[in-house]
């Protein structure tokens, strides 16, 4: 008998961007059930965004947990230079090796220099174990 490994996907924005540079949760991953403690979780993410006024960069992170306090995966935040008023389509991938039975994650975003909120046009995240 075969079996499937855990996966999670979401296309619903979790929070509306604020009109400032505070980090917020853009999208959540449901907990992925890991078959073994040492297995890697792979992530894919994408977002289409109309950049708000005064913003010079959009910064993304994937964090363990359900909010902006969890450990960041990766070596550094993922910053992309942006121009206010423009629509951008950004995407990426990463992985995590997490020694826990169930591991929720969040994709977060912050808006450098924001005086007005960006508009989220679409977002998607996927997490999967192979």
């Amino acid at each position, binding site marked *: *008998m*075969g*079996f499937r*490994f855990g996966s999670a996907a979401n296309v619903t924005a979790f929070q509306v961007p604020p009109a400032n540079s505070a980090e917020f949760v853009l999208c959540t991953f449901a907990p992925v059930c890991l078959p073994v403690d040492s297995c*890697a979780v*792979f992530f*894919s993410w994408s977002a289409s965004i109309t950049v708000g006024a005064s913003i010079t*960069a959009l910064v*993304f992170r994937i964090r363990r947990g359900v909010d902006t306090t969890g450990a960041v995966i*990766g*070596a*550094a935040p*993922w*910053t*992309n*230079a942006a121009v206010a008023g423009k629509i951008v389509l*950004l*995407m*990426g*991938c*990463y*992985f995590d090796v997490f020694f826990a039975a169930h591991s929720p994650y969040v994709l977060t975003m912050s808006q450098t220099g924001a005086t007005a909120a960006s508009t989220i046009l679409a977002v998607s995240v996927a997490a999967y174990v*192979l």
Partner: protein
Amino acid sequence: MGFRAASSYTNTQLNAISGGTTEIVLFTTAALAAAMDNAQVVLLWQVVITIGASTTSVSFQLRRGIDITGTSISAALWTVGVAAGATRVISGSDVDMPTVAEAQYSLTMQQNSGSTASTFVDGCLLSFVL
């Protein structure tokens, strides 16, 4: 009885970005044991870099093997226009059918102009068999 499809992942930067137009290897995956000779290998990558002075575009390739002499699996260079000094999130994906028992891949990068090296911030290369 089930089985796991092979996968590999890395975020270890192997070489500093060159301050000219020299192609360098950013990441190399471990060898993947494909379940069948005609199995397809899916490759995902993400790179965050701060663009060096005078650089107007950067190009990426996925190559079989561990260096810049390996066969490129793409039909052409993946080139993106950039602005010097800006930090960018750049990502991509591709699929290969290596028809060998142990498939290993490298993500390479080159600047197409500019004598100042771009600065690597973070990134990864994922490969898996489906």
